[in-house]
C-alpha cells in the first residue's frame, strides 16, 4: 500500500479538517491516521492516507489540495511517505 502524507500548515480556523476530509472522501482516499500539533502558534496537521484506490493520480491530488489550501488560507502538501521513511528510519 502506497501511503501519502498530507500536511496542513497555517492559522487555525473552523472547518480546515472538514474541508480536507470532504475532498478526500470525494476522491475515494482513505484516512489511516490523523495527528495535529501547534508549533510557534501555527496549526500543523498530518494525515496518513491510502490513495491506492483514489480516482486521481498523485500529482493531481497534490495540486488540488494545494488549491484547496489557498482557498481556506492554509498550506496543504501531499507527499509520498517514502521521503519521511528514508530520512527518519534506518
Amino acid at each position, binding site marked *: 500500500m502506497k501511503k501519502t502524507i498530507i500536511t496542513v*500548515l497555517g492559522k487555525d480556523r473552523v472547518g480546515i479538517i472538514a474541508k480536507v476530509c470532504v475532498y478526500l472522501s470525494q476522491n475515494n482516499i482513505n484516512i489511516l491516521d490523523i495527528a495535529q500539533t501547534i508549533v510557534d502558534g501555527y496549526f500543523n496537521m498530518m494525515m496518513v492516507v491510502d490513495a491506492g484506490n483514489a480516482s486521481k493520480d498523485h500529482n493531481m491530488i497534490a495540486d488540488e489540495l494545494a488549491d484547496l489550501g489557498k482557498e481556506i488560507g492554509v498550506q496543504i502538501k501531499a507527499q509520498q511517505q517514502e521521503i*519521511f521513511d528514508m530520512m527518519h528510519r534506518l
Partner: protein
Amino acid sequence: MISINEVIETNEMIQKMNLDVRTITMGISLLDCVGGTLQETCDRIYEKITSSAKNLVSTGEEISRKYGIPIVNKRISVTPIALVGGSVCKSSDDFVEIAKTLDAAATTCGVNFIGGYSALVCKGMTKADELLIRSIPKALAETNRVCSSINTGSTKTGINMDAVKLIGEIIVETAELTKEKDSIGCAKFVVFCNAPDDNPFMAGAFHGVTEADRIINVGVSGPGVVKAAIEAVRGENFEVLCETIKKTAFKITRVGQLVAKEASERLGVPFGIIDLSLAPTPAVGDSVGEILEEIGLEYAGAPGTTAALAMLNDQVKKGGVMASSYVGGLSGAFIPVSEDQRMIDAVTAGALTLEKLEAMTCVCSVGLDMIAIPGDTKATTISGIIADEMALGMVNQKTTAVRIIPVIGKGVGETVEFGGLLGYAPIMPVNKFSCDAFINRGGRIPAPIHSFKN
C-alpha cells in the same frame, strides 16, 4: 508509523532551510557516436543525447512533486569531447561545431548545463586534446549551456605543466571573448587535478571513459539544514557538534538516495553515485560560510577556518556514506566565493584572501572556485595559481580544481555580477610577483613519491 514531528522536521528543512536535490545528472557515453565525418559525428551526438535524455527533465519534475522536494537542476554530462572528436576534428573550429551540437542538444532536452567539453591531459596532450583546449574560448563564447573542464594532473602521473601554461592563456582569452558579459565564459570552465569520472556538478562534470553507456548521478546539497542543526548545539563541544553534522548529512543524503533510485528506475538508466556535497547558492541561509560562522568563526577566513572546514567536510562524509552505498563524485563542502553570500561578505570584510582559500582547499572539495580576479592579471600568474592548486591535489591524493575569472576591464574593489546560481563577486587581489620563468620552463612535474610520508 512516521510521527508528526518527523514530518514537520522534513518539511521545515525543505521550506525554511533550502534543502533540495541540487542536480540529477545523466552521464552519456558518446564513444559510439564517432562517425566518418564531422557532420556525421555531430548528428550522432545530437541523436544520442536527445534520445537518451528526452525524459530527464519531466522525470525530475515528477519525482519532485511526488515527494515535495525541489530538484533544482537537471543536467547532462558526456564523454570528454577530445576523445570523441579526435578523428574527425582537424581544427579548433571543428571542435567548436561539436560544442554547438552539445548546446543544441541541451536546449532540446531542456537542461541548463551540459558538461564534458573536456580533455584528460594529466600526462600529455594529443593533437586533438590541444585543438580542443585552444577551441575553448570560442566554444564557451558561442554557446550558452556547454561547460568545459580539463584534467591537467593526477597523483599517479604528476602535473602536465605544458597544459597548465596553455590553460592560463586560454582563460585570459575566454575572458576577453566574453568581456561584454563580465567574462562569464570563465565561469563555465574548470581545470582539475585528479578529476572524478562521475561528478554530477558543473562546471566540471564529464562522463568518464570507465563508466557505463548511460548513468544517473545525483548531487545533494543542504548547507542551510546543517547550519540550522548546529545552531541548536551552540557552545557544545566538538563531539556533540560532529554528531549533529553527521546525523544531518545522513538525512540529507537519504533524500538524494531516494531520488536517485527513483530517477534510475523511471528512466531505465543505472544508478551511479550520490555526490554528497554541501553546495551553497547565493540565497541567504544556503551558505557554507554561514556554517563556518556558526561553528565559531567571526568570518570564514579567520584563524581556525581550515580546521573547522576539515572537521565539517569529514563529518559530512561520515554521515553521508552510511546513507548510500554508492557515494562518489566530489563529495564534501564546496567553497565557491560568488555563489555563497557569507563568503562574499568575508571577502568584502577583508577576512578571506586568495591564499587562505588555497589553504582551505587542502581539506575540502574542491578548490579555488568562482573567484573573480582583476582583468589585467597575467596568463602566467593564472597558470601559477593553477599549478599551486594542482600540486595540492597531486600530493594530497584528492581532487582539486580552479575556476577563476579574470574580469576584463575591472579591478580590485569592483564587483562582478554573473546572475542566477553563479551569483556575484568582489574582485580579489592577486599576488603581484612574477612566476613567468617557472611557468615558461615547460614539461611536466613528476608524480610524487608514495612512501616516506612525513
